[in-house]
Structure formats: C-alpha cells, structure tokens
C-alpha cells in the first residue's frame, strides 16, 4: 500500500558487475565509497582503488521500493506472494557505466 504521508524519495545507483566485501563476511555495515559531483553535475564515485564517472538519469519509469512484511520477497517464477509496503519512490538514478579508472598510488620511477 502507499501508506500515509508523503513517500520518501530515494536514488538508484547502478553499477556494473558485483560489489564484494573487502573482508570476508557480509556487506552490511561496510563502506562502499565516496560519491562526489563535479560542478557540472557529473557524479564521481570513488570505490576502493577505482574512480567511476557516471551520469544523472531521470527515470522514464520510476521505481517503487517494496518491503515485504515478515520475510524476504523471493522473486520466483510464480511471483511475489505476501503483503508489501511501498517504502519509497525512485525517480532518479546515478548510472555508472564507464570503465573504472584505477587510482595509481605509486608510479615507479624509470631508472
């Protein structure tokens, strides 16, 4: 259901590939990275030793974020069953599609 009061507006961040925890274990609680914007509004994400450049996209079809009451909504072929609450709407995404630029911290000098 939509619920009472204004719905929160969240943002979608779309990254290529997987994000894995640095230390083994769950992702929960761990840092992803720093998100900056250039003065022109280009999003820049620093993840580990990589710099990702992206762009702000206004979604033609916004998303609703559904939270299942009492357990995870396992998307199965027959569909989600159970009660859901719409927690937030997403109308904007930050799309990072460019290949990450590695951050080179030490350049060996040529002898």
């Amino acid at each position, binding site marked *: *259901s*939509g619920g009472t009061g*204004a*719905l*929160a507006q*969240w*943002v*979608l*961040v*779309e*990254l*290529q*590939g997987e*994000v894995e925890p640095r230390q083994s274990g*769950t*992702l*929960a*609680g*761990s*840092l*992803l*990275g*720093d*998100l*900056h*914007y*250039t*003065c022109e*509004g280009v*999003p820049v*994400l*620093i993840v580990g030793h990589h*710099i990702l450049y992206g762009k*702000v996209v206004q979604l033609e*079809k*916004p*998303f*609703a*974020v*559904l939270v*299942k009451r009492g*357990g*995870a909504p*396992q*998307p199965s072929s*027959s*569909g*989600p*069953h*159970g009660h*859901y609450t*719409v*927690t*937030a*709407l*997403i*109308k*904007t995404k930050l799309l990072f599609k460019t290949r990450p630029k590695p*951050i080179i*911290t030490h350049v060996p000098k040529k002898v």
Partner: protein
Amino acid sequence: ADMRSRAEVDATLQTAKLNPEELLPTVHCLSFGPQAGGGECCLLQLEPGLCAELEAGHSLVIRGEKDEHAVLCSKDKTYDMKIADTSNMLLFVPGCKTPEELNTDPVSCNIIHSQIAGFSHNYWELRRCRPKLKKLRKLLLEDPYDGPDSQKDETSTFSKYTTEDLLSVIQASEEEILHQLQVIDACKIEGYWRILDFDYEMKLLNHVTQLIDSESWPLSKVPLCACLEELGSLEPREMIEHILVSYGRKYVDAGEVFFEMREDKICRAIGQMLLQNAVKFNLSEFEEVWQQSVPEGMTTRLDQLQGLALVDKSSRPETIFLLKVEDLPEDNQERFNSLFGIREKWTEVDITPYIQDLCAEKQTVGALLTKYARSSMLNGVKVYNSRRPVS
C-alpha cells in the same frame, strides 16, 4: 561502523588526483546499511499513472494464489508481473541528493553519510493485462441463489463471498471486479454477492412480463411501485426490483420510477432457456418457438444470441446449439484451441463474438486472428482455422 571524516575524504581525493575546486562541496559517504544484504527490499518498475497514484496515497495490491501468476492491481487496472534481470547492480540509497538538489538547497555540512538500504540484480516489470474475471463467475456459481423458498440454503456448505472476500481471491482491481458484478447481474443478498439460478431468474422475469401483459403497460414504461405491489406477495421485493434492474433501464418521470424493458436482453434470455433443453435444434423450428415465447411486442433476431448460440449452416436442415462464451477458456491460446475443436473453420462473423473479450486495450479482433489463426478461402468466403495440425 566508523564514519569517514572530512579529512579522510579529502585525503582520498588527493590520492585520486581529483581537484576539489572542480567538485561540489558536499560528499556522500556510501556504506551498506545493516539490512542491506537481507533481500527484504525489491524494486517494482511503475507504469505511467501508477507513480502518481502512489503519491496521492492510493494503494497497489499484489494478488494471486500460490498456483497463480501474481498480478498487481491499482484502483482500476490490472498488470501482469514479470522479473527483469540486469547484469548491473542496482543499489537503493535513501537520503541521497542529486546535484540539482544540492545546488538549489545547499546543505550546511559538507559530508552526508548515506546508508544503502538494499541492492538487487533484478526488478519487477509490469504489463497491463485483462483482469482475470472468469473465476468470479465460477465462484458465484458454486451456490446460485434460487429464492427464499430454496431447500438448500439451510444445509449449504458452499462459501458465500462478500466484496472483501472477492477482492482477496480475484486477480483484478476493485473497479474491474465491481463492474463485472454488474455485467453478470450479481446482487447482494444479506451482504453476500450472489448470482441467480437461471430457472429462478426466468421465473422472476416471467412474473414481470406476465404482469406487463395483463396490465397492458408499454414496454418502455413499466412502473416500479406497481410491480412491487402486485408481485410482492409472490417474491421478495428486492428480487423483483433486481430483475427489473437487470432487464430494464431505470429512469424517473414526474417523481416516479419506471423501467424501459430491454428487448434484446429479454429475447436472449428466453432463447437461452429454450436452447438449454437439448443438444441442438432445427433452426427454423427454434426460431418459430422462440418468437412465440417472447413478450407481445418484442421481435427476436439471431444476432441477439451472439456469444450464446451458434448456427450450423452446413447441416441440412440448419441447426442451432448453445455455446456460451463465458464457458470457454480465459487464456487466448486455450480459447482458440477450444473453438477450433468445436468447429474446424470459422468465418470472422461467427468467431468474433467468441473472441471479442480477449482483445487487449486497442487490440482488434483482426489482430487476434492474425496471431492465433490461419486464413484460407472456402467457397469464396474467407475462413479461419487452427495454426496447429488438427489431430
């Protein structure tokens, strides 16, 4: 978890050789929230109009039993749900500001700690579909109402359904369900939606048509009050009014309620009553009996039986038999299989009443025939047959 400090952020910028002067002052430090990996959140892509509905505070409901494909219902529309996979990671971030927001409403601090609420590789996609209403009729036919003198209601073990009950088991929006209840002439008896047993319905209709005849009322001006008065001793008043509403058009004239009786619907019902009694009939015999059975002043026409009966022009003599569209499968392919099982080749005129209800928004019968049938010429007439080999 330790929160990053501005100093640490600046140090990272330096290592990355990014010039802070080319960046907006505010940084978002993204970390995964405590629930992030739990998979409790999922994404639903919204079709036009749904976003506005949610923002207006309306609900969307996902409906479906374990053995059904789930559908999403807004107030008045139904959508199929399908999983769309992406090779990318989608992270959902609350409290993350866009550059536009930062520029129009600058934050006082220059560091925002945003917790990623969840992430996914897929999302639900929606596609508008026809509401799945066949089940509605099936449920209500489990226990048709056959009058207050019915023997069975006392010992009836069948479920009866309120509006709420129907909403929880029918895969359609509330408006679509309520509209369909009207279309099938369902009525509410003691809070439950009921369909009338056909014989009982004909009995009620007969009371009314006999009264119209004996009072010599014009078919276009049947007074409600007089009907209730004259027939109230024979049947419950609600049932008399219900039959008038089902088979007539209500209007008010000089403060009094009248009904304009619907000739086509009455003729159709009487046609059904006659056709139920045998597998098939000699067409001309049927047409004669049928015309004699309808109220004085009404004229029968075969097109009144569209979607109810089918004429076999190839038999000698020509015959007619009952074939109700509502008894046929709801799924497109299954419907066509069933129709081609009944008759190998169909003209467009004959098949249209039996596939009309399959048309999606803006879809034509022609488009359906192109997709599910193959056409050929037979005696100079275009006919359609199955795409599959007939066994």
